[in-house]
């Protein structure tokens, strides 16, 4: 059995979330704020958190009493709902609320941080005093009021998740369960996991800015276990986006089901490839994990201002073939990694990491931007009010190149093509990175032949970039629910890539002697 990947792509591209990237991105520049609302105590976000201009100014004043180069209050309310379907019934639900305010003071490269979940004035003032202890003796004039920035439009939803009843969600889980079971008699178990989240953030800065953002998120996962001749295999698929309920069309659900079943069934035939170095084709979409690990993290400017990244001295240098352009972009509507503003209140937008093969720009938060004398790139993100922000990726992808997928496959004599992944990791300093390939194929004599599974691939970031010798014209973002972890903080991200050929990578496999 073959996974009909091309058909699958065409099928999904008819929907709205997955599109070929260049056409999509050309119509989508950096969004500028248009509507500026009045600074009134009736600001809905201030009301939500039970504070007003005067309280916020009072806390900011306490926070910066010992001086500050920068300071912010990060109010957050996050409500997450999840549902689990196992063994044919939706048998458990979970909901959680995280609410608090993080208080940060920055002096040079020094950060003081505290948070409180108790949003009363005495608690916020106490946390502000704790945080301010990092500074000593400087003087600043804190703002008397905060000027609201315009609402972003990267993920405007018609109905917030809070207003979607559980009765609306249950049929989706049941539908996915039934359709999956019907796909193949060897399917033993189906599990479906639903999650939706409504997050409200309000950031008040020392500069007097008040940024608010309402961030929806949803993710649906189906896990399939099948048994054939005593052998058991498990596979899964998931989809995620900053979307609302209407996003879950029957077509989208069926595509996910088909993908999960295909990925599971193919494993009965899949084997390990031979171990060692070989040419590796990375199929479009999820293979963007290469960019995330091989270059993305190394371009986060906190690593570079400290000099600990392998990319620390490479800006302006040719790091890849001239047909390679790599971008991190937050303003892509409804993507899982999309943002209107980052978690420092800066406009989130498009940062070109590599243009025509030349290393262009790091991903900056305010601390690194100040040190480099640049504008922040809107890349300061945090998991929640419990953490100080740092430079992070949003949606990371490579633009189309001059080749076709068919040309790339024809160019490989002995190698593999990788289709789906579970996880990756990188060592920032040495540049060594890995990603785990769940499904793929052997490529022999320019043709895709037998299925492979469960191999780790390891390479060195800058070396792998140089070894990308062909780039196809089929770029797309993956719709899977990727989460990036760094220094103990998790944030949602997206990634994408066209089909590319890396002339040499090290593939985990079996030694044939």
């Amino acid at each position, binding site marked *: 059995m073959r996974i009909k990947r091309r058909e699958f792509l065409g099928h999904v591209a008819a929907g709205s979330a997955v599109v070929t990237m260049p056409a999509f991105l050309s119509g989508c520049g950096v969004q500028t704020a248009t509507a500026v609302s009045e600074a009134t105590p009736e600001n809905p976000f201030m009301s939500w958190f039970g504070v007003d201009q005067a309280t916020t100014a009072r806390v900011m004043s306490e926070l910066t009493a010992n001086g500050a180069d920068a300071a912010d209050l990060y109010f957050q309310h996050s409500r997450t709902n999840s549902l689990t379907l196992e063994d044919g019934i939706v*048998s*458990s*639900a*979970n909901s*959680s609320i995280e609410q608090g305010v993080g208080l940060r003071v920055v002096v040079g490269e020094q950060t003081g*941080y505290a948070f409180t979940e108790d949003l009363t004035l005495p608690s916020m003032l106490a946390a502000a005093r704790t945080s301010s202890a990092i500074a000593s003796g400087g003087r600043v004039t804190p703002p008397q009021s905060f000027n609201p920035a315009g609402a972003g439009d990267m993920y405007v939803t018609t109905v917030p998740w809070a207003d979607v009843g559980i009765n609306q969600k249950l049929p989706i889980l049941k539908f996915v369960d039934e359709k999956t079971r019907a796909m193949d008699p060897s399917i033993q178990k189906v599990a479906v996991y639903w999650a939706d989240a409504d997050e409200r953030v309000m950031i008040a800065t020392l500069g007097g800015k008040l940024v608010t953002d309402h961030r929806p998120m949803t993710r649906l996962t189906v896990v399939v276990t099948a048994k054939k001749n005593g052998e058991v295999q498990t596979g899964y698929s998931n989809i995620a986006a900053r979307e609302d309920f209407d996003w879950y069309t029957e077509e989208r659900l069926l595509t996910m089901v088909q993908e999960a079943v295909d990925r599971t069934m193919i494993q009965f035939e899949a084997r390990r490839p031979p171990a060692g170095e070989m040419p590796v084709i990375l199929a479009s979409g999820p293979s963007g994990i290469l960019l995330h690990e091989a270059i993305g993290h190394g371009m986060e400017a906190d690593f570079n201002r*400290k000099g600990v990244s392998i990319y620390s001295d490479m800006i302006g240098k040719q790091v890849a073939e001239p047909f390679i352009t790599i971008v991190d972009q937050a303003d892509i509507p409804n993507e899982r990694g999309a943002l209107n503003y980052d978690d420092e209140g800066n406009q989130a937008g498009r940062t070109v990491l590599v243009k025509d093969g030349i290393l262009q720009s790091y991903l900056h938060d305010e601390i690194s931007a100040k040190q480099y004398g640049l504008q922040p790139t809107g890349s300061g993100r945090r998991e929640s009010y419990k953490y100080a922000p740092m430079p992070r990726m949003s949606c990371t992808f490579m633009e189309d190149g001059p080749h076709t997928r068919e040309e790339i496959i024809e160019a490989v004599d002995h190698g593999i093509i990788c289709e789906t992944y579970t996880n990756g990791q990188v*060592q920032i300093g040495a540049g060594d990175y890995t990603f785990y390939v769940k499904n793929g194929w052997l490529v022999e004599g320019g043709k895709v032949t037998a299925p492979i599974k*469960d191999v780790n691939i390891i390479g060195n970031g*800058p070396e792998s970039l140089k070894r990308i010798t062909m780039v196809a014209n089929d770029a797309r973002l993956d719709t899977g629910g990727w989460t990036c972890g760094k220094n103990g903080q998790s944030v949602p991200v997206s990634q994408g890539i066209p089909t590319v050929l890396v002339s040499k990578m090290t593939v985990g496999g079996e030694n044939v002697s």
Partner: protein
Amino acid sequence: MSAELQNKAIQAIEMLENAGADDAWATAIQSRDVEFEYRDGALEKVKDTTSQALSVEIYVDGRYSSHATTDLNPERLQSFFAEAVAITRALEPDEYREITPAYLFAERPTTHLDLVDQAVFGIDREQRLQWCEILDASARDNERVISATGGVYDGSQISAAASSNGFRGTQESTYCWYGSSVTLRDQGDRRAEDGFYAGGAHVSALPAASSVGRTALERALSRLGAAQGPTLKTTMLVDARAAGQLIGRLLRPANARNVQQEQSFWSGLIGEQAFSDKLTIIDDPLIPRGLASRHYDAEGISARRLPIVENGVVMNLYVDTYNGRKAGMQPTTGSPSNRVIGTGDYSLDALLAEVGDGVYVTSWLGGNADSTTGDFSLGVRGHMIENGKLGRSVGEMNVTGNLRDLFSRLVLVGNDVYPYSSTLSPSLVFADVDFSGV
């Protein structure tokens, strides 16, 4: 403090019952965490936080749900609970959902676990800064150092639980850790990096700050000049720290949930000689000052020593009450505590000598394992072993195989247990392992 939290949990149970829950479980948690980080001669970050949360599990008309919130405002809590009960009612009944039966609370151990050190509460700013300075100076004591970040992390946590069928319990612990990460200039644009962190429940668990900083530096220095290793089948010696992480992967599907969902290569192995007779894994929640010690688990099940594998024979799995009922297994505990790995007689040097030629793995990089089949593939870093001695530094290699098969080829076990993990493992040696590199 713990009495106050206990009351919060009991009040939550009452509120949930008033809202319509038949049974309920509540856990209230409060924690204090302080972080001082120092980089290259200067204080870089101070984080000082107190956090609170309440989590509940509710049972309504044979249905189940769980909820958590950090917003403890009584009025909003009331509406949160009302909504929680409404959500639960909308689910389907599940005959296997039932609150932990009270017999599992019985015979709660009284072992003094010694998890609270008053000295941790006495650590002040000056002490943290002094440790940071020592860590920083010792970690940067080499001309190749580009940057070193050191940190002190200390705090405490109290949790209190209560249930509608009579469970009451509180657990309190302190912690205090410090360590450094070091980046060194290597060939070309490459940087060598590594780190070392140590600590425990008591201040006395901390080795001298200077030795921790120095160990971090030495670990980074050993990464200098790392080149890609070869593709070959050979003996693998896994150092004690990395061995604990490998055991963690082995145990990930060793539970009733994975078995019930048919996603575990541990299915049907109880009583079987599934692994090498050199492998023994005991889950022991009652180790004084242990990093994962406890008197009861998240479901309130009284803690007891639980053999998972003895001399290669599978004895027990991690079984929670719900999945135990579904899978027809007696509950043990659904969540691991301290995992104690059986030790051998060999020092690290003796293991190297026994191995002769092979690969010494000191850390993993990425990779994964399939819980259903046990197939794994992991990135590794370490050294070649040549003539019984540590050879050149290698990286950019993968090790690939099947976890059950790998642990059936465990041939030697060291006596050098790594103490800074809840998985207390010595170094382990495996025969005939597939490496891929150049």
